[in-house]
């Protein structure tokens, strides 16, 4: 396998609430190969954002990581002290968030915020840092970059703010960029622009991108690999072509089948996956998708399916596959 910039091994996380433990992530395995864009797809509540925050170790105070490793740069992020982790944030791993309207500080100018990010650089002058910031803004397509530095976030539209956020995250040339649903709050045209931008920037950054989204179209467009998340578990992972053309897990198949963009014949009713996302308080020992799976059988309800290697670099967690092989 290619050299990975980030390896998530067996990560489990739960939230402690008044109603008990919410097991948001369970035994997640995920690889981000160097230089590739890995998409994480799943519906709301699948744990995508929690996963992103967990990598940055920015989860809320009631979250507990009970097992697993986050292998990055030769070490385990989970074992780092807070200071060491802080040194990595914004420099080696950066994150862009979902909501551009509230993600930027409203009372500081763009320039001030971009200079703040460069605070560790004690050798460059203020002017140099501004130069760097202006260049970054230019790179993401903001016209007249230098004068934009003195404006406040509220003076920009949502799309531009997201570009600014991307520029900010790339300032320090991180090895890994986590994009958490960055196009969800934007309309379709803006989304297309954003994806185009990301593809362009790919040649700039030597690093990798962890692209989180529930939009299959976006994932298909820019990702090299796809990881499918359902209710806190990875159910399938593989190259983008494989996932979209030869999905193996019933959930992935259903997801793709239900994508409105893929419906070829006119129909009155959109296909849905019946049932609801499971309650994460009580995790059954069985396959997490079994209550809603159209191909469910006895074993699914009692035993957690193993990760089956369907082909090179393509894994799916389903009893059906194993039986087929056997």
């Amino acid at each position: 396998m290619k050299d990975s910039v980030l390896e998530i091994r067996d990560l489990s996380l739960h939230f402690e609430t008044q109603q008990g433990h919410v097991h948001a992530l369970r035994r997640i395995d995920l690889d981000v190969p160097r230089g590739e864009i890995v998409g994480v797809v799943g519906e709301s509540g699948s744990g995508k954002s929690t996963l992103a925050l967990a990598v940055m170790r920015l989860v809320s105070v009631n979250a507990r990581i009970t097992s697993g490793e986050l292998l990055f740069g030769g070490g385990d992020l989970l074992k780092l002290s807070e200071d060491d982790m802080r040194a990595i944030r914004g420099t080696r791993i950066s994150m862009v968030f979902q909501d551009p309207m509230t993600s930027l500080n409203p009372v500081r100018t763009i320039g001030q915020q971009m200079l703040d990010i460069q605070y560790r650089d004690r050798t460059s002058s203020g002017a140099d840092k501004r130069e760097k910031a202006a260049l970054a803004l230019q790179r993401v397509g903001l016209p007249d970059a230098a004068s934009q530095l003195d404006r406040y976030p509220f003076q920009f539209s949502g799309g531009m703010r997201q570009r600014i956020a991307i520029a900010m995250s790339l300032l320090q040339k991180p090895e890994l960029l986590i994009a958490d649903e960055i196009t969800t709050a934007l309309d379709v045209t803006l989304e297309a622009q954003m994806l185009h931008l990301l593809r362009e920037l790919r040649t700039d950054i030597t690093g990798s991108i962890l692209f989180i989204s529930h939009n299959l179209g976006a994932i298909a467009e820019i990702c090299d690999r796809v990881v499918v998340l359902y209710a806190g578990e990875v159910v399938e992972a593989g190259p983008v072509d494989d996932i979209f053309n030869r999905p193996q897990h019933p959930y992935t198949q259903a997801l793709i089948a239900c994508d409105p963009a893929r419906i070829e014949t006119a129909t009155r009713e959109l296909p849905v996956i019946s049932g609801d996302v499971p309650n994460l308080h009580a995790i059954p020992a069985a396959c997490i998708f079994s209550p809603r799976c159209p191909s469910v059988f006895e074993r699914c309800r009692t035993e957690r399916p193993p990760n089956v290697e369907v082909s090179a670099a393509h894994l799916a967690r389903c009893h059906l596959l194993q039986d087929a092989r056997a």
Partner: protein
Amino acid sequence: MLVYAIQRIGLSILILITSMVMLFTALRMIPGDPATIMLGSRATAAMRARITEQLGLDDPVLVQLGTFFGRILQGNLGTDMWSQRPVSQMVLENLPYTLVLIGVGLGWAALIGIPLGCYSAIRRNSLIDRLTGVISVGTISIPSFVVAIYMILLFAIILGWLPVIGAGDVGDRGDQALHLIMPGFALGLGWVGYLSRIVRASMLEVMGDNHIRTARAFGLPEFRIIKSYALRIAILPTITLLAVAIGGLLSSAVFVEAIFARPGIGKLIVDAANMRNFPVVQGGVLTTVALFALTMPVADLLVAWLDPRVRATL
């Protein structure tokens, strides 16, 4: 921004004018001879005659109102019948002392209260947070004059460390500072709690905002996040709430000045009230009301200046 400033100040002036009219009407609505009411029963006939003549108390009401406002605009707050001195002069003599007292009281309250509020917000539910919470409620509710009296008992009478009466010798800064310790402390005590509570509440709200999460995601040091990001935003509602509370501060100042026999507007009003000397009371009251009425727009303008979002909409 200019228009906004004019609007805010204009509104305050309107309120000020209404207050003055109310004051004016109140006096004249009371049954009895205005001169006697204003000066009390100890006034001599000569005094009463003089004030009747000076204020034109025999003139029709609207004329009186006119002269009333006319005089105030000229800075003439009337004459004290007992000492024959212009009230405005008495006010000007005493005002600085009150301002200094308020400054000291609020100053130390802010110095301790704001960081305490920040800390409580960051380390929520810690021992300090809960302790501060309970003590805040306590100090806010206990009347300041009780605090002042107990302090005098402890520090002046029993221990003999600090002086009780007055403001200290003029020109001797050290002596004056000494005389400020107890009054300033008594005045500010309730406000430490109040400030820490509103700072805590504002901070908690801000800290939950998304942009704080972004700042963390960029690895910014916690101290800077608190100072330049969170506090900078949380301070805005704090300023507004403080301005509203200045009225309470002025009230407490009255007590503190009276108890410590400190010169000041408060003491001026209290002494005059005890003697039923209305012209002086009126002068002092008008001054405090004007002070209070102007703090609000000043605070609003300060907030507008600090918050670029508000600045942009003006």
